[in-house]
């Protein structure tokens, strides 16, 4: 499939994961080596494992990069991304993006 996966335009409605428990930490999926092609402010991402392609913005690229080698919880991830963990809206948005990326098979929870 070919997806548009902007942080402001999620591919999956937030309601679809509303009841799920909150994972503590996230990581990039195991041995999956994602391919990126950068075009200006956006990038196209190919996941060889699923065969899916995603149009993503810089924030998504940064999140995936930040989770590439070491798992992180939201606080650790916000530190890696230089986000303010005291900004409630920012952290809620980060949480929503993480769930979205999980649904798309690009990251996975570690501590479930």
């Amino acid at each position, binding site marked *: 499939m*070919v997806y548009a996966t902007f942080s402001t335009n999620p591919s999956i409605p937030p309601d679809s994961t509303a009841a799920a428990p909150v994972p503590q930490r996230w990581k990039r999926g195991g041995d999956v080596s994602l391919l990126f092609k950068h075009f200006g402010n956006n990038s196209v991402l*190919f996941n060889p494992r699923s065969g899916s392609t995603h149009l993503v913005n810089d924030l998504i690229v940064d999140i995936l990069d930040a989770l590439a080698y070491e798992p992180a919880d939201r606080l650790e991830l916000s530190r890696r991304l230089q986000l303010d963990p005291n900004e409630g809206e920012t952290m809620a948005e980060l949480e929503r993006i993480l769930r979205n990326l999980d649904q798309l098979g690009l990251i996975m929870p570690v501590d479930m």
Partner: protein
Amino acid sequence: MNIGQLSPKELGHHLQSGGLRWVIGPFVIHLRSHVPDFPEYLHKFYGENQLLMPPWNDIADFHLTLNPPLGLRRYWRPKVHFRLDGNAFFTPFPLDHAPPLFEWGLNMAIAARCNHWLLLHAAVLEKNGVALVLPGTPGAGKSTLCAALALQGFRLLSDEFGLYCPQQKCFLANPRPIGLKNESIDVIRAFNSQAVLGQEYPNTRKGTVSYLQPPALSVHNAHIGATPAWIVFPTFIDNQPTCLEKLPQAESFMRLAANAFNYETMGVIGFECVTDIVQHSLAMQLRFGRLEEAVTLLQDLTQSTRPIPET
């Protein structure tokens, strides 16, 4: 020898005995048929294609048959069956609709077999040695634009399939009759009175269909590919002003990938093919309500030998 050098009667004899083999770009077609009027169609629309006379040394890519059923159905509401390697993929068509059935059957055969190339649902034409790609959804005006540009001297590589070769990094030519539908038939007749169109086939699943003969020069040069230079996504909107706008590369990538028949099947090679095409092309969105205006814009766009893709 070309198909047109044999008479329809001679073509009919070959079709009914061992079959006929001819070349369409990278493909060798083998067809056997007992459909009475089909040799006339081949003579008119494939007359410039190279005919391969037996004994055949080349392997045919597609073994096709186009035949009426046996028994009483041959006489009562006569039908025609298309088969690829003996397998029928379509419900039979009325016997006098054999040409559309053949063209759609060959499309299906290419789509089913050619996963070593990226198959875009796109018309591809060449100008100044490089390719103009017109990806299109049904009704977008792809074939109408393609026909008009081919009649204006662009070299026709394909109306239906943009065949992109990952190794050669270019589009392969497979010029065939251009299928025009409904209003497009009269639009092309009005656009160029010299256009060679065949009979109309009414009440097909796509409405009324007619075919435009491919330019002879395009068929003769079908061994020459073209590297991508322009991607233009057309949209026909009746009575709307014509405009050509630049598209961001990332959006072009996604639209082109979604347009390909086998992007996912090809996996990472498909991703690399689309990347190659987008990186070497200027991508545009064309909205048009008048064919003449769209053709003029595309002629202007392709005047330069090669656009400089945005980085």
